[in-house]
């Protein structure tokens, strides 16, 4: 049986191209231009999925993105599995593999369906009332069971191999929706020369017109659709994006678009991303998002074979598919009669038209009568039959009060069409924070004013007929262009008045009193029934937001597109309020679900964040360095030789620095050139140190606080000229220190004539440290006398090295005789290699950040961010000596004057020596004064830095300890899982306390 329900002709599918696909392993065919849903229906397949809670058999309900029931997983390969896709949106391609979800062992025979039998005992919110005893059982029994049952499709378990992309775009007018209103709007706006982006979620433009057998007739202009589309496609200022959903309306007219590029292709081009996420900034936004048909709420309204009337009409006219052979139409509006008439014309038996209204006198009902279709007015549906497919409905007459009376009549059918009227799609408008107001005639919320530059046109503001929508779009388009600042020629017609298209009052169809416990569904996917909503109201939930959360209505993957208004109607009746008084739940982004990958876009792997490397990086890679991430930088942590452990490598590196010479890449240190006649004043106000006395050519260790008094950054500062400082910062602090400086300069000290320039990346910085450093450089450096007399510790001199201009610093972060060569970055690699070559006779050894940390710790030099944590003052860190004593003010000074900032109980930086010299403490380990204390206790400090010092042949540690400096010599304890370790408090300077080596 192949496409048994396909019409012999008609529709917009390409009958010349047969497409093969499988559903749950069953091989089927459809045509190019089909959706999975239309192809399944063509093959008379109505059972497509199972519902979330009761595992009820479910079929296709709609023909669009509002579909709550027909959800499937599409599998391209093991890694390319996408769950929860709507069959009504999935475009058919050759070899498509679709699988149903949330069923076991099979779709037809689903064990989960037993929950349906339990349904009387598991109403809305039942889980809040039980599963509480015994207490622990929630954890190991109930929750696992609930979790096993929950969820719809399966998440893919392999990394997604596809790529995703991003794009920013700007336009004068963004038009959302390519139906009659959107197309007309785009056309009108384009005439003004406006830059336009038109996005349409479907593969083709046309919107509702695509479901007309003759769009021309609907518009009274046969050529309009094709002509307009052609015009837009060829227009240089118009960008048309199909398969593109506007998913979110963000502040200041930023709209998020998701464009699906390859999902509809059998063989996607591997270079093309699967999806592209657009961020469009529009001067004006025009929403032509159409309307969504509303189902009717009656017992058993969820069986496969029960469709929205408009959907069935789409399947017939657009896809050439008969959704059934014998149909019943349930309606409360004239519009839905079109479906019955079209299906009748196509040869479907119309067993009945059941119109809830007392009478149906319009043009369309008359046409139905003329066609001899059996028409029952003032009637309601009280039940349906059938299990995996609807087999019949039971209707009952309504008396003058609208109450069911008399005997129910059964009508056999295999297709039920229902229509409760249309609900304008105001989602995006509402996201823009636009106000909605209730329209009694349309029984719908309509858009009012938006605080953003946005307007609506067509069905999304209640103008339903194609022709009226087109005219509405035309004027709206011209107005949008005008408001975007363009000259418009078109005369703006008055927007057409809203037409009172009949609609059922949202809520449940009239039912006999004391009716049996049959389910009338409001939210198809989450299995929320009218009884659940009544229960929530009975339990005192009044806010619609509470009812939504308690019953989960509107929280399924369709986000209530078809259920919200009916839910409102039922609640309103239950608590005796009018619908607008009950109010509406907030519309949240996204309009339809959006792929995570498209948010991430290019940001993955090495492009997740920039990888910053220094000019010497490649050399380090070649030397087999192991790197660590510091901010965005990759820094060489150590240089293992022939399989050395980190420990061994670091010991070796440290020893060479102490005994001969080490080479270190310090290029990542932040550098700021502070220039101007008030430079010294600026530095005095900012840093705690005094700079007035710093002579040109000399350096000083600077400490920077925030105005809260805590250490923020530190670094060597060199005076290059009277009016010029070369300031260095920590690697991580480079950007924030510069920002802080600019802040004070631009907003507080605007009296100062000073300018700042980041030179972090201008200079490659090569540290040469160790007793042999001078010998290594002697052969390379020009124009600088390296002698201790001419270039003492903490001084700087301009010069050249191997003909390359440099700033040569005589500084040491290791405690050894040391130099830091600053050369222009492009020369960094060459100079580094030259120094390395020259150093080899002297046993020069490259060392990494780990050895650097050990060496500085041996000298008791702190690392800001490791030995400080944002709660440490200069005095805590033992750096009070650095403060300029005669300065009336500097950043942080006032905060330091608060008593608590120099109380006796403050944590102070000290050294620790373990009783057992080879035990290396864990960084972050806590410190207690008494060996006997056991948790819970309040430690008096913690270890900030801890290493094995090869030089000293034992472990060393720095720690912040309460009143630490008074505890010199005391024994304290470090509680570890294995027991306490005893440590002795000592000076934080472990090596060469006199500093004779660095002054050598």
């Amino acid at each position, binding site marked *: 049986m192949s496409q048994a329900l396909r019409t012999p002709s008609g529709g917009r599918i390409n009958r010349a191209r047969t497409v093969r696909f499988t559903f749950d392993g069953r091989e089927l065919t459809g045509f190019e231009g089909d959706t999975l849903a239309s192809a399944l229906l063509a093959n008379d397949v109505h059972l497509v999925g199972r519902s979330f809670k009761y595992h009820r058999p479910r079929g296709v309900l709609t023909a669009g993105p509002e579909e709550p029931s027909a959800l499937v997983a599409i599998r391209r390969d093991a890694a390319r599995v996408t769950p929860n896709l709507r069959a009504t949106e999935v475009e058919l391609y050759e070899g498509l593999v679709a699988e149903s979800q949330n069923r076991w062992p099979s779709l037809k025979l689903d064990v989960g369906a037993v929950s349906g039998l339990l349904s009387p005992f598991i109403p809305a919110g039942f889980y809040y009332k039980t599963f509480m005893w015994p207490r622990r059982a929630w954890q190991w029994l109930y929750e696992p069971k*609930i979790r096993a049952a929950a969820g719809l499709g399966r998440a893919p378990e392999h*990394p997604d191999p596809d790529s995703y992309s991003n794009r920013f775009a700007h336009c004068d007018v963004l038009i959302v929706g390519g139906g009659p209103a959107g197309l007309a709007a785009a056309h009108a706006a384009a005439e003004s020369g406006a830059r336009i982006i038109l996005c349409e979620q479907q593969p083709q433009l046309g919107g509702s017109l695509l479901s007309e057998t003759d769009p021309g007739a609907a518009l009274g202009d046969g050529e309009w659709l094709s002509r307009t589309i052609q015009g837009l496609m060829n227009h240089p200022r118009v960008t048309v994006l199909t398969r593109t959903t506007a998913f979110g309306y963000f502040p200041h007219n930023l709209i998020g678009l998701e464009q699906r590029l390859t999902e509809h292709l059998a063989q996607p081009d591997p270079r093309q991303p699967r999806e592209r996420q657009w961020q469009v900034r529009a001067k004006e936004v025009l929403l032509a998002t159409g309307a969504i048909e509303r189902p009717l709420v009656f017992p058993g309204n969820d069986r496969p074979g029960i469709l929205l009337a408009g959907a069935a009409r789409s399947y017939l006219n657009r896809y050439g598919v008969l959704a059934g052979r014998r149909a019943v139409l349930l309606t409360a509006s004239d519009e839905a009669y079109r479906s019955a008439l079209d299906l009748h014309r196509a040869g479907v038996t119309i067993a009945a038209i059941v119109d809830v209204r007392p009478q149906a006198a319009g043009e369309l009902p008359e046409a139905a009568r003329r066609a001899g279709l059996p028409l029952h007015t003032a009637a309601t549906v009280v039940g349906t039959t059938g299990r995996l497919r609807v087999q019949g409905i039971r209707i009952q007459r309504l008396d003058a009060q609208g109450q069911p009376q008399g005997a129910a009549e059964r009508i056999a059918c295999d297709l039920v069409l229902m229509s409760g009227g249309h609900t304008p799609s105001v989602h995006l408008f509402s996201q823009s924070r636009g106000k909605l107001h209730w329209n009694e005639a349309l029984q719908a919320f309509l858009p009012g004013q938006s605080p953003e530059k946005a307007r609506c046109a067509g069905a999304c503001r209640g103008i339903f007929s194609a022709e009226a929508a087109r005219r509405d779009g035309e004027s709206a388009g011209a107005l949008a262009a005008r408001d975007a600042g363009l000259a418009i020629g078109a005369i703006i017609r008055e927007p057409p008045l809203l037409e009172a298209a009949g609609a059922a009052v949202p809520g449940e169809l009239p039912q006999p009193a004391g009716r049996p416990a049959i389910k009338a569904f409001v939210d198809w996917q989450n299995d929320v029934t009218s009884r659940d909503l009544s*229960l929530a109201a009975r339990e005192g939930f*009044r806010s619609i937001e509470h009812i939504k959360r308690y019953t989960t209505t509107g929280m399924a993957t369709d986000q209530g597109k078809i259920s919200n208004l009916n839910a409102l109607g039922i609640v309103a009746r239950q608590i005796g309020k009018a619908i607008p008084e009950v109010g509406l739940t907030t519309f949240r982004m996204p309009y339809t679900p959006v792929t995570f990958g498209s948010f991430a876009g290019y940001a993955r792997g090495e492009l997740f964040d920039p990888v910053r490397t220094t000019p010497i990086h490649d050399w380090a890679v070649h030397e087999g360095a192991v790197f660590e991430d510091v901010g965005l930088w990759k820094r060489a942590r150590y240089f293992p030789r022939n399989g050395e452990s980190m420990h061994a490598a670091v010991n070796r590196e440290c020893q060479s620095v102490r005994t001969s010479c080490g080479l270190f890449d310090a290029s990542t240190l932040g550098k700021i050139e502070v220039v101007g006649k008030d430079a010294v004043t600026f530095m005095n106000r900012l840093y705690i140190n005094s700079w007035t006395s710093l002579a040109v050519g000399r350096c000083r260790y600077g400490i920077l606080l925030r105005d809260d008094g805590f250490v923020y950054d530190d670094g060597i500062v060199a005076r290059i000229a009277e009016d010029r400082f070369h300031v260095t910062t920590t690697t991580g602090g480079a950007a924030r220190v510069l920002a802080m400086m600019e802040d004070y300069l631009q907003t507080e000290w605007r009296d100062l004539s000073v300018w700042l320039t980041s030179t972090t990346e201008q200079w490659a910085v090569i540290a040469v440290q160790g007793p042999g450093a001078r010998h290594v450089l002697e052969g390379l450096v020009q124009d600088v006398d390296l002698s201790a007399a001419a270039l003492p510790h903490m001084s700087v001199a301009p010069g050249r090295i191997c003909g390359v201009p440099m700033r040569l610093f005589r500084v040491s972060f290791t405690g050894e005789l040391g130099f830091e060569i600053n050369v222009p970055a492009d020369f960094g690699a060459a100079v580094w290699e030259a120094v390395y070559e020259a150093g080899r006779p002297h046993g020069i050894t490259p060392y990494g950040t780990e050895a650097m940390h050990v060496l500085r710790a041996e000298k008791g030099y702190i690392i800001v961010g490791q030995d400080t944590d944002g709660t440490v003052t200069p005095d805590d860190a033992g750096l009070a000596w650095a403060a300029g004593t005669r300065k009336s003010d500097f950043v942080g000074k006032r905060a330091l004057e608060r008593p*608590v900032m120099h109380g006796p109980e403050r944590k102070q930086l000290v050294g620790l020596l373990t009783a057992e010299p080879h035990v290396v403490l864990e960084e972050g380990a806590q410190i207690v004064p008494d060996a006997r204390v056991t948790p819970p206790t309040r430690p008096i400090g913690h270890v900030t830095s801890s290493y094995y010092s090869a030089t000293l042949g034992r472990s060393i540690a720095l720690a912040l300890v309460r009143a630490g400096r008074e505890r010199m010599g005391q024994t304290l304890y470090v509680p570890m899982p294995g027991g306490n370790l005893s440590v002795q408090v000592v000076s934080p300077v472990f090596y060469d306390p006199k500093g004779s080596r660095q002054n050598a």
Partner: protein
Amino acid sequence: MQRFSGLSLIRRGLTGQRGWQPQWRQAEPKAAYDAIIVGGGGHGLGAAFYLAKEHGISRVAVLEKGWIGGGNTGRNTTIIRSNYLFDESAALYDHSVQLWESLSQVLNYNVMFSQRGVMMLAHTVHDVQVSQRHVHANRANGVDNEWLTPQEARTRCPLLKIDDIRYPVLGAAYQRRGGTARHDAVAWGFARAADALGVDIIENCEVLGIERDASGAACAVETTRGVIRAPRIGVSAAGHSSVIMRMAGVELPIESYPLQALVSEPVKSIFPCVVMSNTIHAYISQSDKGEMVIGAGTDAYTSYTQRGGLHISRHALEAICELFPMFRRLRMLRGWGGIVDVTPDRSPILAKTPVPGLYVNCGWGTGGFKATPGAAHLLAWTIAHDAPHPINAPFTIERFRDGNLIDEAAAAAVAH
């Protein structure tokens, strides 16, 4: 109070689930109460419950501008943990975790507290130092927190990618007692239990002013539903704390920022615990319903719009896709924003105020949900005793003047 149980469900199931009473009354405001709580979130409702249950003060009104639980209580990612660094914080949050552990039974309302474990990833050497300091500090102050190697982390969460990523996972701090709960249920459970003890829960009642008597003490609140008198007024208004407290002339060191969160479409159970990465800003767990619940960051600017920028949620999903590349094909179902009230040291204020009879509970920033029962319990205590409980004694307003900050943010100091 109508008792909830599996049996009651079955019994009422036989009669079409009729006969359930409202979970709380639609109370009309009375002229006066013994105490008023401003703010009908989990914190405020819980405070009213504990006032009635533990301090015998049941003439209490909870005033909610909109619908209860509609603020941050219903807008967060439901993560619960107590492995904070400083002893003061750890004590505060662990007090809460201890109350969570029996909350369903105490309230006879299943709040679905699930101790699935919270894993906080370390991606850099500096992260490792900070995380291990937390682990050691927690071991000392009696809060469970353990260090996992990257492999151990992946064993606990098999989908986690630990290498071949921009910032490889170097380890993780793991708290077994941490987890998640059903956020709405917390508000409703507290409301129902408080209501049963006589507390009036008054929704759609916005506070317009706070009146002070001759002595300067707070004595009444003006609301959209009239003036309501009470000698003790507790303010638990999260993002709106500054606005409310200013009505009584109290200025706070607080700023309110938009915070976003989002969920994916529901998928079958696949994610066993909570995973957080403060370095690349990823916060993720799976709800009982099957949705992946993901926390994004705050926007840079203060705002009361309950709406954030697209680039913020993009950033969050970049991080999720980097750590869990199989989730790239999942889809965002729903995103939303809350207003978080942030203090300079990222620790809350839970204290008496300079105005007699006025108490404040605010500044929870992004961490308020986990603290719900604890904050509620301590606020009730502080109101009942007109003095703080030892646990919340350090969390004063004055600490900012005196410099006794409890700086959890700074302690996780930025990399060197």
